[in-house]
């Protein structure tokens, strides 16, 4: 029943999009989480592989973004969002 949802050798798939690249209003599905340590917090907050995410709005000057996931709003920094890879 346990699946390791991490994908550690992603440098081999450069074309894969991550959450920081979505524009406002765009929807996508989480594929996997790149950063092991950060994934603890992200999974806990409902950013599970397979969940749908949408970017709701952004803070100015490349600040954090607000996403809709798991039925609520979550803020993430851009570098944190970049660790969330999306299904193509």
């Amino acid at each position: 029943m346990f699946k390791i949802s991490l994908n550690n050798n992603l440098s081999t798939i450069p074309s894969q999009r991550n959450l920081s690249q979505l524009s406002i209003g765009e929807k996508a599905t989480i594929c996997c989480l790149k950063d092991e340590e950060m994934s603890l917090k992200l999974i806990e907050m409902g950013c599970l592989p397979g969940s749908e995410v949408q970017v709701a709005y952004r803070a100015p000057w490349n600040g954090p973004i607000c996403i809709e996931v798991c039925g609520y709003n979550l803020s993430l920094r851009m570098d944190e969002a970049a660790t969330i890879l999306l299904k193509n």
Partner: protein
Amino acid sequence: MTDEKFLKIALVGNPNSGKSSLFNHLTGLNQKIGNFPGVTVDKKTGSSLLSATIKADIIDLPGTYSLYPKSLDEQVVLDFLNNTIDPSHPDLIIITIDASNLKRNLLLFTQVIDLGFPVILALNMLDVAVKSGIKVNVEQLTKELKVPVIPINARNGAGIVNLKTAILQHVSQNHQPFLKATDLAPQVVKELKEKLKLSNDYLALLLAHQYRKNIQSLSVAQKTAIADVNKKYDFQSVVLQIQETTARYEIIETIIKKSVTNLNATTKEKISYKIDRILTHPIWGYAIFFGILFIIFQSIFAWASIPMDWIDGGIAQLNATLKSTLPASKLTDLLTDGLIAGLGGVVLFIPQIAVLFVFISILEESGYMSRVMFIMDKFMRKFGMNGRSVVPLISGVACAVPAIMATRSIDNWKNRLITIFVTPLMSCSARIPVFTILIALVVPEEKVLGIFNLQGLTLMGLYFLGFAAAVITGAFMNLILKNKQKSYFIMELPSYKMPRWKNVGLTIIEKVKTFVFEAGKVIIAISIVLWVLASYGPSDSMQQAVHGANKYSQEHELSPKDANNLTASRKLEASYAGHFGKLIEPAIRPLGFDWKIGIALITSFAAREVFIGTMSTIYSVGSDEPNTIREKMKSEVNVSTGKPMYTKALAFSLLIFYVFAMQCMSTIAVVYRETKSWKWPLIQFIYMTLLAYAGSYFTYEFLK
């Protein structure tokens, strides 16, 4: 079922799940705030009448998303639940669940169940869920979760009666865990259970993950035992945590599928996003934020000054009455000039702190504060802090003590330390009296460009200077300090809500209480010490002072009042405080200060506004009835030049000193408590003193 008269209940839940509102409904004003053992996280307890005969002691635990804590606040929860020796160890746990976000909220629920506690689920915000098209089948959910599920509305109190009934009927539950800890790490769990004599599998697993954190109930020997077991079986903490959380979400998903129906899965965009896009707009977002700040500062200074004047007058009145009615003795002096004056210094700030927290709690309750953190994060990171540092920095304008306590929500240690370090540079309200009197002394009351008041501009400039010093210091520390952990900004942005006035009111009472008891203790103690230092001195020099004053008064035929003032000021000069002032005079002379100001600098350590009182005592030399302190200071003559003492150079030098210097015992005490060592308060004290000295020196040299 329960025949004991007192039930011990703990409230557990996610942040923003309505836990505090429920606590306020259950306990009303019967609340007490204490500390959890060993840490400074506020522990809110209260009592609730469940029926005519049965009462419950309720403890409100900090909001957390899981039993794997990320910040100091959250860590308390596991520590508390784990500590069976604690007399307040709960018989029953009430978990508040936000029905509009069932999935994420149930994660913590399954963890608490697996720890083996009897649980009642308080299902909150069903109305919000319905509005967003989520229909929860409560009966089905009860069946799936196998615990009583009570729908409540923590905003208006609906369902609280049912909740109380459910508490009274609660039976000891014997739950199968949702997730078997032995499936995850069989050997570690088994061996730890034996070694630590635990009865619960999941507790063994949680301790294996978190023994390195500051868990109170574990002895050093036990921690070593856990470390050994972990090593023996190659315990992969991070991987196992991910597996556990993922598995729990899978279980929750199947429960939700059976008991929740999504009515309109339409993709209609939330209206709140429209508001959000304005509040986080590159121009409007900041304009609105600064507008709100402006209103807050206006209110702190304008509205709070009215009750502050009453308190100030009231204390003076009380002291005068006591002095005239009680027999003149040292004891009376200690009571009036020492104790009551010190107490006055504490009580005086209550209006400002109350006004500030009215705003802060409204902003937090409404959900706006997290948007401020959101738009300020990028900016604050440049200065070694993060978005969450905004609240402490704003609070610092009233008082650094509650502000530093508010840094606990910052999960990253480096960010938190820098925030603690720079917060005292924000000009707190205790500096206002000093600022205003010195500005009034040397800055003419003129208009600039026809509208701006020059004195007001000077005051604003001083505030800006403090803020600039805070961010520059932050940037500097950001460069030298090593970051031990990752800094996150993974934060829930709660939906907008109307503030609940009951919660706002209770927050204010709570904050004021904390301030009075925390800062109050120190301020009163220091006031008494200072009173002793200022009233006593080496006996021969004290006698000489009295003698000399009497002689002078007789020769110059001073009125009794002036003679008294003269004696008082001569005695102060001869006292230990006076000696201290003279002792430090060589050090402060480059700043333009004399020993009299030296005394004021020393006494300012109790609280900065004591400066005014000290000045008024020191400059009591009787001449032509100078009534106000301002007039007294204005008529003071520099002995060496024969010109007025308070020149522009001296006044600004003193102002700059007060902007930067760490003259506050309570702040030092609270920094010590929050950082758990003397290292940081000491560094902070030295740094701020040097900053003050250098700033003051250059100001004086430049303006002289």
